[in-house]
């Protein structure tokens, strides 16, 4: 069953590659070789925690994200509907934040190399184990700051599985769910009034 899941989708997306803000072309080249789409690069991404800046520049970018350095900050950012996803900056996720993410339908992104670089492997393992028990969208990204930290989609999923995430969820977190976030953002962008959903 696990293998069937892994064979399903072939489009992989890594929505948070901080290194690509500086050297976008080189990152795009490597990403193409690894058959993965990245943000920033393939998709425009605005990363800010400043609410004023976010509201001012939101329409210029396809995706917007905030970086949470603690559970408290994550809870604060999750309330803002302007964000497409919230990046968890290497801390152990608490249950109440996961519940909030589910309620506000804002995905959380786990940048694997943020945890690995700072040797917070226990926090990563606990966070991924917690995510196993919630039925909401979350994303797995590399959080690559150098070219060497960029990984192929299945490899990102494999690292997450190594740290305790279920294989089916790991695969969805690098294929279907990021594409859902992008699709949602594209639909919002097409609307005449940003952020207003038009029902037929």
């Amino acid at each position: 069953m696990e293998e069937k899941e892994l064979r399903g989708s072939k489009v992989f997306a890594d929505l948070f590659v901080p290194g690509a803000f500086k050297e976008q072309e080189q990152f795009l080249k490597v990403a193409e070789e690894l058959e993965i789409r990245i943000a920033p690069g393939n998709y425009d991404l605005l990363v800010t925690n400043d609410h004023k800046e976010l509201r001012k520049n939101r329409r210029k970018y396809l995706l917007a994200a905030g970086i949470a350095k603690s559970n408290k900050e994550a809870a604060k950012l999750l309330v803002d509907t302007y964000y497409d996803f919230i990046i968890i900056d290497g801390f152990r996720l608490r249950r109440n934040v996961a519940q909030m993410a589910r309620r506000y339908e804002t995905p959380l992104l786990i940048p694997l190399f943020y945890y690995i670089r700072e040797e917070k492997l226990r926090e990563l393992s606990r966070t991924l184990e917690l995510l196993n028990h919630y039925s909401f969208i979350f994303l797995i990204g590399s959080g690559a700051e150098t070219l060497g930290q960029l990984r192929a989609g299945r490899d990102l999923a494999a690292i997450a599985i190594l740290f305790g995430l279920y294989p089916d969820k790991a695969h969805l977190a690098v294929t279907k769910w990021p594409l859902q976030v992008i699709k949602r953002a594209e639909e919002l962008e097409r609307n005449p009034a940003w952020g207003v959903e038009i029902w037929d």
Partner: protein
Amino acid sequence: MGLKKPSRRYYAFLPMESTTQKDLLHSLRSVLGLVDFARAEITVEVYGQIFMVSCRREFLYRVRGAIALKYQVKPLAVSGTRKGLQRLLARQGIKIAVRKGKR
């Protein structure tokens, strides 16, 4: 009655940075730990620039994760048999002469 599912997996990849068979085995051993490393029954073979790792089926994800943790690699193919792997690689235009199995 279908065919028996192969109990092993063969995974071929191309490392983006240079490495050796020994280094790869060392890193797998350090990430997986002695017990899992022994239980996974890992073997590594090198065909030019392409590496082929075989392990027990249930350890494939962990082995791939352990490789990806240290090395940036381009995954090429995964198969249950050597012959299958050879065919999948041939489809991508890569020809390797895999050695025969135990039989």
